[in-house]
């Protein structure tokens, strides 16, 4: 099963479309999840997910905005989408009785 950050990364990458890249994913995670995402955490997770076959990466074009440096393009593979779907469903199943989901007050023990 995926780790929490792995799920966040796959979801952010999938939401950005067919071909996205490091800086865009990082910005998306920071914007949507509201948490700081370091370059170290981003690229080591991308590397790990690629080894698992959940992401595919390749070097894209260089732009002047990036000081002539190439982008590392990222695409979520069908296997990656399946893994993210399984993680999401597992979280749904685990959470369905939780008080913050049902809205019922927490029972005192």
């Amino acid at each position: 099963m995926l780790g929490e950050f792995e799920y966040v990364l796959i979801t952010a990458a999938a939401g950005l479309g067919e071909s996205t890249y490091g800086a865009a994913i990082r910005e998306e995670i920071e914007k949507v999840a509201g948490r700081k995402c370091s370059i170290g955490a981003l690229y080591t997770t991308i590397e790990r997910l690629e080894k698992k076959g959940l992401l595919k990466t390749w070097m894209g074009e260089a732009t002047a905005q990036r000081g002539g440096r190439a982008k590392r393009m990222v695409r979520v593979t069908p296997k990656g989408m399946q893994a993210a779907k399984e993680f999401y469903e597992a979280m749904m199943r685990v959470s369905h009785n939780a008080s913050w989901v049902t809205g019922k007050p927490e029972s005192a023990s």
Partner: protein
Amino acid sequence: MGYGQAGECVMSSLAEMATIFLTPRDRDAVLGDLAETGANGWNAFASVLGLAMRQQMELWRCWQPWVAGSVAFAGSVLLLGVSFGLSVDSRHLLRGERGYGSMLCEALLMLLWAWTSGFVVASLSGKTRWVSAILCAIPCLSCVLRFQDTSLSRLCVLLFLLPAVVGAVQGACRARLSHRTALTLAIAMTALMFVWDGMYMRNWFLLLPAWWLVAHAERPKLSN
């Protein structure tokens, strides 16, 4: 240029320099991302260093670096003793107190032990080779600094280093040997160990890399 700007320039240069720890692919992507997001100075330096450290730590989640490090450390401890023994025996040989056959056997075994250990260490985990090198260097330095036999050069304990480094370079270029080569090497080494009269039990550990190479050798594909 103010002090703050100068410091930022220095940190940005350091960040660029720190990318030598990254693969060329990551180097371009990370420097590009930093330029795009406008990160510079300390932030850029910390980001690059953080990534390099995380990548190193990630490597240690597998068993291979641990085995490579253990072989490098234990192998160098044992081979220091073998090198010293060989140096003492060569002195005996010059005095006519020892035969050529036994001496040749010992020298050949040391060469093969060192070469196979170096090959296995580098082929198992090339990316953590600097840690393996440090683990090999610690007992070497300790032994050289505490060497007390005045009749021999203290560097005599490092005789095994050259074949070990050659093995490591070849192991890094070529992860496996052919099955026939590995098997011949392992059988020859085992036979030499039985033949050699100066054998210590602990040196049997040095045979493990050779048989590891056999177990992980390239096998010819069977055609239908």
